[in-house]
């Protein structure tokens, strides 16, 4: 009898947990490097991300090979020489919405969110903080954020020959539209 209660409670816990999770497989992450010599831009439209509104948590998985550039050769060099996508196929982010108590995920509206967590790129994990905007509309969440990362923090080496063409910090734009996960 009590065992069935135990199972019931557990399944309630799991059900309660998953109801607050929303997901996207088509999130967009793009980055920009601007120098007087050359602008570099790449877009990835196949980012997978999960957000748990109950716990105020957010995670991302970003396949490096899915970043696409204007110039095919840049894309090849990005994968081969800079991010070494065969060795480190994906970047991940695992973080918390630090002000999640101030966000009412059940009410339509636009909320400022402060996010902090571990960003792993090129096999190197760094603490990263960012601010973003969360829009809640009819129970669905859209998230966007702009922040910068230093290439040196992630041991992305820029040879001196092209140092003038690649900025030392790149700006990262994130745009995701989540759907409740079934």
């Amino acid at each position, binding site marked *: 009898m009590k065992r069935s*209660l135990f199972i019931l409670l557990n399944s309630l*816990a799991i059900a309660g947990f998953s109801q607050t999770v929303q997901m996207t497989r088509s999130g967009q992450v793009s980055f920009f490097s601007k120098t007087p010599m050359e602008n570099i831009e790449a877009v990835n439209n196949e980012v997978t991300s999960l957000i748990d509104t109950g716990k105020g948590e957010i995670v991302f998985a970003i396949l490096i090979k899915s970043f696409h550039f204007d*110039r095919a050769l840049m894309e090849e060099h990005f994968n081969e020489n800079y991010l070494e996508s065969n060795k480190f196929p994906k970047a991940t982010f695992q973080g918390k919405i630090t002000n999640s108590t101030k966000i009412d995920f059940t009410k339509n509206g636009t909320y400022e969110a402060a996010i902090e967590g571990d960003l792993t790129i090129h096999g190197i994990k760094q603490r990263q903080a960012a601010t973003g905007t969360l829009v809640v509309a009819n129970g669905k969440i859209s998230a966007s954020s702009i922040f910068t990362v230093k290439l040196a923090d992630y041991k992305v080496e820029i040879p001196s020959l092209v140092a003038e063409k690649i900025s030392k910090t790149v700006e990262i734009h994130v745009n995701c539209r989540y759907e409740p996960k079934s």
Partner: protein
Amino acid sequence: MLTVAMNLSPNMNRSFIIAILVLLSASAFAQDDLMKMLEDETQEVRKKDFTTATFKTTRLINGHSVENVAPGVLDFRISHRFGFLSSGAYELFGLDQASMRMGFDYGLTKRWMIGVGRSTYQKQFDGFSKFKFLRQSNQMPVTLSAVGGIMYKSLKFDNPDQVNFLTSKLYYSGQILLARKFSESFSLQLMPTMIHYNLVEGVNDPNDVFSVGAGGRMKLSKRVSINAEYYYQLPDYKLPNTTNSVSIGFDIETGGHVFQLYVTNSSGMTERSFIAETNGNFFKGDIRFGFTISRVFTIVKPKL
């Protein structure tokens, strides 16, 4: 968690307490659970992963590699070939005798590229079409391409008094390229080749020259690799007094350029001239220095 709870609890009350604890601790586990959920999700959608950059550029040294220029990209290639190093100081070890080929290659699709060129050697025009049939990936062990080429020697006829046909100065080449990138730094390629001559000099010379090429590259650093290429001509199907083409060189990549520096015993820079008409003996000092500069221009930007 469930089994643990039951093993530890012969007593029902305790199991109830554990259930409460599990509920409470859900938040502590949640972050890892979310990450695990993400891993499960990304596992499901694991796509076909194509191998890229088997070689640095579309030519191994003299001959084609399985690499294509990307769609919408124009590759401008200038190749230089000098005289024999064995020709001595008077000829500055061959540098006084330069011959060159200028070429434009263009990528039509991900699998198909075309190109045209003009060599000073015999005032030759050439064109080719290269198509990639198989692409190495996590499901396919090799890349397979086919190249068809046509060459036209625009040098005036040796004997203008006889009846000459324009087609006598046309040559065709056909190659199958089979390559595999074995590791990040090591790739190998095999290339069975046939060259057709509409007109040959001697009565007994074959019109079809058959050869098998083999080549490879080893990366020395991220941007420098060492390449080698060899074409073995089948003895019964080769032109008289010709040798097999041997080449060794470096690929050096600098942003938008690739520099290829090499030594070879061939003077021509198209399939017909370097595979079928090489006459130097590499191992007896008949070595020429050569280099190619490849510069790519994006003509049509891909839709992001």
